[in-house]
């Protein structure tokens, strides 16, 4: 791997040639110690940490399309750790901390912009709930500040903070270390660093079945032949149920489309992420000037990566209600990703019912922020065959034990 530095970028940039390939296309082997299914952020980060932290020698990532072509490349890139319960806060905070050092770690500019995330309070109840939420975060050592209306208005002047607004802004709270990260760069950065350590990243390779023996999966069937594996990690987000069906067990997952929208670019107008749970909207402004807008899940389960008109209307209604001056903006793009929703909005990370198969799923609407932490803990789980302390509570067994972590703050938006 050629190291990126100011000097190397300047010299290659001026000569306009010899741009090194970021990662190579290696040949597919017939057997691996660990095969990761799914080349999204979680799969790639897991492969990287399997080599880096645990020294596992032969690791492959199999991706049916192109890396980062799933939800990792479709999300609205908000990274934060403003959760309510101890289990979630500690895990997501670990992930945010890894993000803070990730550009250096991977020698790849992931453009983490810690511009803060502001959650609005529109009612007395919101104010009370936020006080509890922000204080819970502080007790776990995560930064949070409660704000009154004038502080909110100063942070986001485009917001309609007038008393006669349909959703009056009474206050809010901010996690200042939250922000946005360039999503493709996370996939590419992990891919490049994992490749440099010897991980095989195989694109256009779809897993279509498994050969299961007495001690678990022996091989994976793919459109490129059969591949033997010592252990298998599944990180396929909204398609996790397809994997479980092939392996003969069930998951507590429902797959829904989640949509996002991007406006035409405009001059700098919003330099923080704004979330309004009451209106079902969150919005930030990209470095190119576009507004990046998201909201809640579509209304019913679906694998159609299109998105539903009722949700479009709901989200954009929220946008123009809170920011009347955005009402004449044109939306340039709309898309959906299929997300893996679990009843308690907490991921499933740990062993599966098949002995050498491990699960990384259930991230639902919020797993981009979890990529470094998820990869870190999933690699530990696979390498050691035991959960990482930070994700010990996220196992599939929690449903029968009644130990759900009903993380209301997981999406920030009521679903």
């Amino acid at each position, binding site marked *: 791997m050629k190291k990126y530095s100011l000097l190397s970028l300047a010299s290659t940039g001026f000569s306009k040639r010899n741009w090194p390939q970021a990662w190579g296309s290696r040949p597919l082997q017939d057997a691996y110690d660990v095969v990761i299914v799914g080349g999204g952020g979680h799969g790639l980060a897991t492969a990287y940490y399997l080599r880096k932290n645990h020294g596992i020698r032969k690791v492959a990532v199999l991706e049916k399309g192109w890396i980062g072509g799933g939800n990792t490349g479709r999300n609205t890139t908000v990274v934060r750790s403003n959760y309510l319960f101890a289990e979630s806060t500690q895990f997501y905070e670990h992930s945010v901390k890894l993000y803070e050092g990730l550009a250096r770690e991977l020698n790849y500019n992931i453009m983490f912009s810690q511009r803060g995330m502001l959650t609005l309070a529109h009612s007395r109840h919101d104010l009370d709930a936020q006080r509890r939420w922000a204080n819970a975060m502080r007790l776990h050592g995560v930064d949070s500040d409660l704000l009154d209306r004038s502080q909110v208005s100063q942070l986001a002047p485009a917001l309609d903070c007038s008393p006669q607004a349909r959703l009056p802004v009474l206050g809010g709270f901010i996690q200042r270390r939250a922000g946005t990260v360039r999503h493709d760069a996370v996939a590419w950065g992990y891919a490049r660093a994992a490749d440099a350590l010897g991980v095989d990243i195989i694109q256009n390779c779809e897993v279509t079945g498994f050969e299961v023996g007495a001690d678990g999966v022996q091989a994976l069937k793919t459109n490129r032949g059969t591949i033997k594996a010592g252990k298998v990690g599944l990180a396929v987000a909204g398609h996790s149920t397809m994997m479980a069906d092939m392996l003969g067990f*069930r998951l507590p997952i429902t797959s829904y489309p989640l949509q996002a929208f991007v406006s035409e670019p405009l001059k700098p107008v919003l330099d923080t992420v704004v979330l309004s749970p009451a209106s079902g909207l969150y919005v930030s402004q990209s470095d190119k000037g576009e507004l990046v807008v998201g909201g809640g899940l579509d209304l019913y389960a679906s*694998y159609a990566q299109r998105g539903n008109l009722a949700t479009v209307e709901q989200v954009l209604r929220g946008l123009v209600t809170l920011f009347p001056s955005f009402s004449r903006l044109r939306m340039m793009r709309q898309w959906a990703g299929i997300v893996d929703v679990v009843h308690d909005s907490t991921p499933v990370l740990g062993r599966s019912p098949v002995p050498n198969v491990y699960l990384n799923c259930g991230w639902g609407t919020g797993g981009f922020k979890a990529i470094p932490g998820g990869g870190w803990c999933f690699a530990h789980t696979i390498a050691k065959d035991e959960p990482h302390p930070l994700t010990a509570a996220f196992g599939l067994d929690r449903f029968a034990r009644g130990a759900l972590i009903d993380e209301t703050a997981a999406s920030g938006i009521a679903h």
Partner: protein
Amino acid sequence: MLLLNCPHCGPRNETEFNCGGESHVIRPSLDCSDVGWANYLFFHHNPKGVNLERWRHTFGCGRWFNVARDTISHNITAIYSMSEPRPDTSNGCVGAEVLS
């Protein structure tokens, strides 16, 4: 957008309805194991293809009914009452014609 044919009111816009999730999930006896109870509550089918699901005409007559809907094309191939048995989905579809 779906046009759902409520058995009581006729075709209406999907925004008048709520989807209540998978149909024909049978509640085990109350002395079942914790695993059995978790399966009943949480571990459902989530198919890519025909799904049999319950819908309610919440902002209309309030009635519950069953729908066979493809989760990729969103085609609805059957609408039937809550008390009717599970239709055969073995050939990947339900009913002959597309209702909406």
